[in-house]
């Protein structure tokens, strides 16, 4: 299972990277979203997939899956949510101020 998900994570990272390398503001934002998906899945995978029950002790199962990566991902999701929100607003404010979403035109000059 981990191999499959690791491959998926690789795909997510590749796509995210590709998007980040484009010149369009919005595609870059989408890239960051996919990047965090990849990172979160990776944390989960690194904790080991699918052993034991979900970590809710009320079920009285024999073994539980590792709860720590889940908690870490939760924190990470929340943080990337905040980051994405801020980045989105920054994106459109940038667009409005410069009237372009093309990073080629947002280079600025060397001697500014």
């Amino acid at each position: 299972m981990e191999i499959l998900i690791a491959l998926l994570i690789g795909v997510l990272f590749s796509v995210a990277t590709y998007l980040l390398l484009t010149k369009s503001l919005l595609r870059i934002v989408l890239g960051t979203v996919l990047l965090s998906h990849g990172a979160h899945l990776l944390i989960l995978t690194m904790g080991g997939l699918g052993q034991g029950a979900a970590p809710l002790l009320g079920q009285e199962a024999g073994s539980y899956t590792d709860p720590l990566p889940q908690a870490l991902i939760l924190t990470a999701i929340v943080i990337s949510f905040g980051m994405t929100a801020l980045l989105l607003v920054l994106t459109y404010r940038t667009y409005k101020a410069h009237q372009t979403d093309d990073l080629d035109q947002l280079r600025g000059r060397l001697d500014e």
Partner: protein
Amino acid sequence: MSNLLVVPFLLPMVVGAVLIFFAKHHRLQRIIAGLTGIALFVFSIYLTYRVYQSPEQMIHLEVGDWRAPFGIVLVGDMLSILMVLMASFVGLVCLFYGFKTIHIERERYYFYSFFFFLLTGVNGAFLTGDLFNLFVFFEVTLISSYVLISHGGKKFQLRESFKYVVMNMVASAFFLVAVAYLYAITGTLNMADLGDRVAMLDQQGIINVIAIIFLFVFGAKGALFPLYYWLPKSYYGPPAVITALFGALLTKVGLYSLIRTFTLIFNQNPAFTHTIILVLAGATMIFGVLGALSKFDIKSIIIYQIISQVGFMIMGLGVFSADAIAGSIYYITHDMVVKVALFFIAGIIIQLTGTADIRKMGGLLKKYPLLGWSFFIAAMSLVGIPPLSGFFGKFSLIVSSVGEGQYVIVGVALVVSLLNLFSMLRIFMNVFWGEETDITFALSNEQVNGLLRTVIPLIAVTIALGLGAEPAFQYVSAAADQLMNPTHYIDVILP
């Protein structure tokens, strides 16, 4: 158990939160902020004293009463507590400079809250003993920086902030990636525990790759070559006080983390990992100073000097001996002071003349001798002219590098120092020397002197750190010994 350790980040956090309610009352905001800044600084001194006097020279706190490595542990060792002290000092000075230079509209939009939240993140990052918690504090720091760097929403700012945010988000994602790998292998997040477990692994290949990823992550935050390209322009946008704060604190968080992880956890193959660091240190110095030389804008030049100095700051880590690391720590301390002073002075000059282009200025020394000499001293300190603080930093790095046979980096460091000198003299000779131009000065003498009142303490510190280098070196040597002896750290945290 010492709850004292939470104060450096909790106090600013609480005050930041409280200030949300007073966003429209700028006078009250300033009073609260100022008192907090002072309290934090005073407290940091006390805390440093406590740590220094404690038998282990290290205090720690198991947050939530969960013992390490299970809960999050805060560790105030010699290095982290020094960083906290310096951050509090820098914060205090910036705050008072900010009172005089920050526009009222900025104050209305939570400037001081963001300021304190940034300090929260920075101090937290210094104090935490948990790798994931470090990530969290990094993010607190970063998001505060995102907000502060774009605060005001000027066209230039927005454009460069976008790049800044994206670069850092990528680095943060890889922070998570690296933590995940490390967790998979070691099953722990506590840094002491990580150090312990990594040392027990016989397979070092993967660990070294993870180390490289961490180097990438912290290097991006710490502005190492070739990861710094986002920095020059994005730091240019915000007002001087924010640039100063960033220049002094943000890159330091990255460097601190590098030092921490590469002494505590990734210390198994220094011949490989630390050599890479050394190579990057040299490249960073060179490219940073070339950047500085390529500019005529005083703020830009000093921003590039951030990068150039970063090279020096991690040089000691790359050399990886107790003396070298002591040199690095001392250098970081010195740089925080001098960098802030330089940005303040640049800010004053820009405000005074209405331009940042040194070619358009001239002869300021006659009317503003104190400003000029403050700049000169700070600049010479940055270059490493004795007996200012910068000299002792460079000197100890060079002696220790020579001692370890790292001659190439010594050569690079010296050549770069010479170029640093050139770049700083260029500012001095253009701005303060030369013929007076027809610039009308936009600040009154009282205003300039008022602003200088925040610069003078910094200048005093760089002189004092130089003339009084002995106690400082006793401290940093002890800190470096602690770092080079990670088992002590591990034993204290995991008894």
